[in-house]
Each structure stands twice: as C-alpha cells, then as structure tokens.
C-alpha cells in the first residue's frame, strides 16, 4: 500500500518535471520528437534506478565514516562514473540497446533529476526497496511528462505561432498549461 502511494505520488501528484522542476534541460532540449523523447526516458529510467541503489550504499559508507559533508561530492562522482560504466557495458552486452540509448547517456550526468532523486531518497529516509520504487516511479513520471510534451510539440510545428514566441517561449507556455493539468492530480493520494 505504502509503495502504491509512493508510485502515484511520484508519477502524478509531485511529478518530477512539472511540479518539482527537476530535469528541465532535457525536457526542453530533447522533446522535439516523440522517438527521441522515448529514448531519453528509457536512458533516464535505467540510470536513475541504478544510481539510487548505488548512492544508497554510498550513504551507508558516509554515515559509517562520519563524513556527511562529502555527500554531494561522492554522489555526483558515483553518478558520473556510473554513466560511463553503463555506457561501456551496454556497448559490449547489448548493442541494440546501446543504439537506442547510447547518445543520451553522456547528457545524463548533468541531468539534475538523477542527483535530485538520489538526494530526495536520502532526505525522505526511504529504505532500499522504497528507494528503488521511488526512483523508478520518478523516472516514469519523467517519461510521461517528456513524451506527452514532445507529442504536443510535434503538432505545434504545424501551428502558426507569433514570431517572438517561436521555439522555447511557446514550449514553456505549453509546459505551464501541462503543469496546470497535472495539478488536477493533487489530493488523490
């Protein structure tokens, strides 16, 4: 029951992009086409879950050693190393998956959603299982927002947008309307 609440909360109510403002750069940057959006979401989901597990273990080590102030440094280093590692392993083990996700992986290190979710897992004092569920649900929320948004943007190419609003400004306006729609989910948990 608790886990279901975590999932609904992270996917809809506190959507990571539309209400927590994490991962905005890829949200605006790679949302031009639905296909790329799906690829990016897959890569994010993959890395987010693994990163949450690894940073959870790192946190145990930090607590043992009594050096809480190294949290930011060690988390980001672990995530950066992890992304590289995933890239190398994927290339060897599953070239097909690498083809699909590969180009997005380098972009992920500086995706604040990954580090954000890792820190949130720590701040919410979740255990390992809830942490993994939380990370995955957030990744789904990210994917949902990104894919919906890219679908709208594809249609927008055909629309006649005022000159000054073209491109990024109108993308933000749409994101705002989408965020408003997601506010309707408030209170279902």
């Amino acid at each position, binding site marked *: 029951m608790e886990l279901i609440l975590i999932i609904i909360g992270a996917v809809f109510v506190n959507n990571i992009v539309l209400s927590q403002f994490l991962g905005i750069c890829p949200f605006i940057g790679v949302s031009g086409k639905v296909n790329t959006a799906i690829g990016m979401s897959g890569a994010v989901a993959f890395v987010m879950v693994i990163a949450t597990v690894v940073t959870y273990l790192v946190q145990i080590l930090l607590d043992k050693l009594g050096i809480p*102030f*190294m949290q930011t*440094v060690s988390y980001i*280093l672990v995530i950066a190393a992890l992304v590289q590692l995933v890239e190398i392993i994927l290339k060897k083990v599953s070239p097909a998956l690498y083809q699909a996700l590969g180009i997005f992986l380098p972009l992920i290190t500086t995706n604040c959603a990954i580090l954000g979710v890792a820190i949130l897992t720590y701040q919410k004092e979740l255990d390992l299982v809830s942490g993994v569920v939380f990370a995955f649900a957030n990744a789904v929320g990210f994917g949902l927002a990104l894919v919906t948004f890219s679908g709208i943007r594809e249609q927008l190419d055909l629309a006649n947008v005022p000159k000054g609003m073209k491109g990024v400004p109108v993308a933000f306006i749409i994101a705002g309307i989408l965020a408003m729609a997601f506010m309707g989910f*408030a*209170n279902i948990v």
Partner: protein
Amino acid sequence: MAKKESTFLSMVLTLFLVTLGASAALGYVYELTKDAIADAESAKKSLAVKRVVPEFNNNPTEEFIKIPAETEGDTLYFYVARMNDDTVGYAIETYSKKAFGGLLKLLVGLKPDGTINNVAVLEHKETPGLGTKMTEEKFSSQFPDKNPAKFILKVKKDGGDVDAITASTITSRAYCDAVQRAFSAYTETQTEKGGMK
C-alpha cells in the same frame, strides 16, 4: 594552451590529488561551520518554542523527552519550558500525515493543565492561498485557551468544534489531527508519571 598528455599514471595521480584536496578542504570547512550550524538549528527550535509557550528561562531545546508515536518509527518531541523551577508549559512537536501536501508538522504549546497556549506551523506543503490560511488568525485563533479535554478537535463537518478553513477541509482536519496527537501524548505522560515536575 598545450594539453597535458594523458598517461595512466598521470590520470590516476591527478584524480587522487584532486579528491584528496577536496576532502581535506571540505573537512576543514565542516569543522569551521559545525558549531554555527548546530547553533542555527537550535536557535530555530527555541524560536518556535518561544512562540507557543509562556515566558520561560530554561533551555527547552536541551530538556526534552522523545515519545514514540502510534505509527512505528515516528517520534513526538516534548519540550519542557520552566520559569525558575516552575513548569510554565510544554511544547510538543507533532505531525499529521493526512494533510493535502502529505506531512504537516506543528509545534503545539500547552499550559501545565493541558490548555492550548498557542500553535505554530513548523513544516507544510499545503497549497498557497488555500491550505496556508491555517497560519492566519481566522483559523489559528480558535485554538488558544481551549482545553482539548472539552473542546473537540474535529472540524464541524465531522461533529467537532473547529471551524474549517473555507475550501481546505483536508488541511483543517490534518491540523486538528496533529494537535490531538500532541494532546494525547500529553495526557499519556501525565497519567504515566503522575504529572511531570
């Protein structure tokens, strides 16, 4: 500028030195700011305690009891405020998980006889303009000088004595829930120890 050659040794050595330097520097800054951070945290607490109990001259943030709440893992903090040697009130850090935005944390100040002195909101994620009205006088002034033994801490819709905030019944319910939790903890300590002195 010429790029430095990347040999295995130079790469390992550089990364090692950079991280070593970073950890040493951070350890130093951490030691420097440790006391100030602890002070800020306790000042924050005692400022909140000051808002909910009558004047006191001990340090309640050092004199507190932890009471386990009914759900596992959560604790209520029970601060005792004294003027000279007389107990003038208790400040109880309480919570409700039923609020609109999830967790709502309150600090409830009780007089020694259990009457509410004042309530302060410590932490919330309510909707601005709706749920946040719980800090406004129209709602919050209902609680001081009421004794929860007689004053039913439920919104009127649920058969209680509290006027809910317009369009924010859930927040109002959570608020009552949290205050009630504090009062229950208070009665428990009173019966267990025959009144804390």
